[in-house]
């Protein structure tokens, strides 16, 4: 369904701000849940239940002195967090969050952009996002940053392969790369996490690694390795990297919900976006739960897991799904 370009523009603005808000409260939720899982309170000073904590953090980060290493390559050093942030935010544009509404006499779609290559677009943006890490690490002109960015880059590139292969089954069953089509197909037939359980599991693990969350948080292994590609970053520049990481987490959670749990579909159709939000919330909470429960992997374990377990499983899943789809139809 066509809609005027200015509606898309307004929607994009609203969604970007909503994502930023969601990011802010994801950090709050993470600290709160982690705290409670470790018998602590978590943030509870700024506002009731610490609800103003994200804003306090923002003010603190923005007001911090933005220093940089003398040897840093300036334009690239400053561009790196912006690249990360841009790709993280842009990827959300193609994720459908509702069925579409008739507001006054305009039709409003349930997604910002309905493109036929939505899935590839998300992966393409994700692969561009790697440059944020690699350029940031290189432009800092520091050995710690450089090695950290190598580590990050190797991990992200390795797991991107599994991530892309794991959704192949969904693409074959949905017979489209368009996320709107995939969601509608699931609404009409069956939620894809049942036939694509292996795909979901591979996607889930690869997603943890892609967003560099524990137990795959080798890019920023706070407790044992120096902070990684953003060692030399401080203030809001570091904050942008961190924001990009959390927004990637939200986006990939939303993508998982879209691909495997029928997006905005739920028992009562007009509540579409709420179902979508609820599912994403559950996904994010599970990520936090994993962070509270599992210790970090060693780097060689990480690589082995990615290449020797996830990749074969994803490949076999894709081949079997292809055969079954052909056989059934």
């Amino acid at each position: 369904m066509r809609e005027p370009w200015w509606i898309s523009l307004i929607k994009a603005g609203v969604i970007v701000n909503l994502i930023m808000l969601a990011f802010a409260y994801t950090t709050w939720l993470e600290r709160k849940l982690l705290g409670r899982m470790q018998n602590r309170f978590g943030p509870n000073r700024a506002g009731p239940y610490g609800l103003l904590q994200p804003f306090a953090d923002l003010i603190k980060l923005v007001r911090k002195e933005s220093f940089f290493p003398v040897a840093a390559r300036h334009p690239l050093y400053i561009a790196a967090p912006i690249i990360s942030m841009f790709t993280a935010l842009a990827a959300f544009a193609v994720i459908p969050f509702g069925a579409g509404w008739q507001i006054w006499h305009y039709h409003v779609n349930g997604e910002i952009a309905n493109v036929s290559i939505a899935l590839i677009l998300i992966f393409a943006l994700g692969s561009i996002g790697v440059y944020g890490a690699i350029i940031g690490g290189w432009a800092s002109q520091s050995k710690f940053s450089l090695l950290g960015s190598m580590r990050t880059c190797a991990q992200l590139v390795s797991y991107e392969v599994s991530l892309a292969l794991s959704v192949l089954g969904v693409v074959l069953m949905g017979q489209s790369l368009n996320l709107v089509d995939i969601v509608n197909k699931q609404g009409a037939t069956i939620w894809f996490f049942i036939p694509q359980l292996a795909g979901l599991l591979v996607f889930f693990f690869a997603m943890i690694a892609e967003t560099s969350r524990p137990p795959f948080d080798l890019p920023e292994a706070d407790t044992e390795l120096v902070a990684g590609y953003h060692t030399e970053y401080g203030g809001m520049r570091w904050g942008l990297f961190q924001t990009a990481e959390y927004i990637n987490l939200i986006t990939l959670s939303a993508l998982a919900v879209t691909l495997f749990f029928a997006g905005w579909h739920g028992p009562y159709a007009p509540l579409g976006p709420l179902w979508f939000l609820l599912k994403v919330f559950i996904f994010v909470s599970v990520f936090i739960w994993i962070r509270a429960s599992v210790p970090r992997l060693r780097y060689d374990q990480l690589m082995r897991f990615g290449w020797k377990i996830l990749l074969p499983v994803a490949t076999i899943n894709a081949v079997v799904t292809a055969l079954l789809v052909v056989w059934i139809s």
Partner: protein
Amino acid sequence: MIVASVGNVLVWAVWLGAAFACLGSAVAVVSFTNPFYSALALIGNLGSLAVLYLLLSSEFVAAAQVLVYAGAVMVMFLFVIAYIGPRTESPWTGGPTWQTIGAVLAAGAILVEIVVAIGLKAGGSLSHSHHVDGAFGTPSYIGRLFLTDHLLAFEITSIVLLVAAIGGVILGAHSRTTADEVPSL
């Protein structure tokens, strides 16, 4: 028809921007002395090519271009360059003469091709016989072409890539003498 003309102006603006970005980044690739900047310029080149593909309404090719070349291949380039370190290459100081001759010949051939294409276009000999339909450039359209009209080329390419991958694994595996060096998972 105002909207349509605004759209046309926009297409022209984007095309101009992408085309000049393409040329500029291509010049930048060969003129930077720091290989890291050269690689970054190459990424810019691939990105602007993707925009040109988008203007030709082949979304899939554009996305694949970004995903495969700008996203995966160039990461490897940057990876290696960053590992090798800050050594900068000196600008080209003359190589074997056959390379020079080959480069000049290739450049001349491309120039002739461009001139011929522009001439044919101006003469009206290159007009499209049929209009591009809506499905053009969509993943299913390209997939169908790959598995029908261009099946042989597609399969040969995939076999060549497979051989290259196996070769890479064999070359890489040679350096490790014993298999049990790495602790098990």
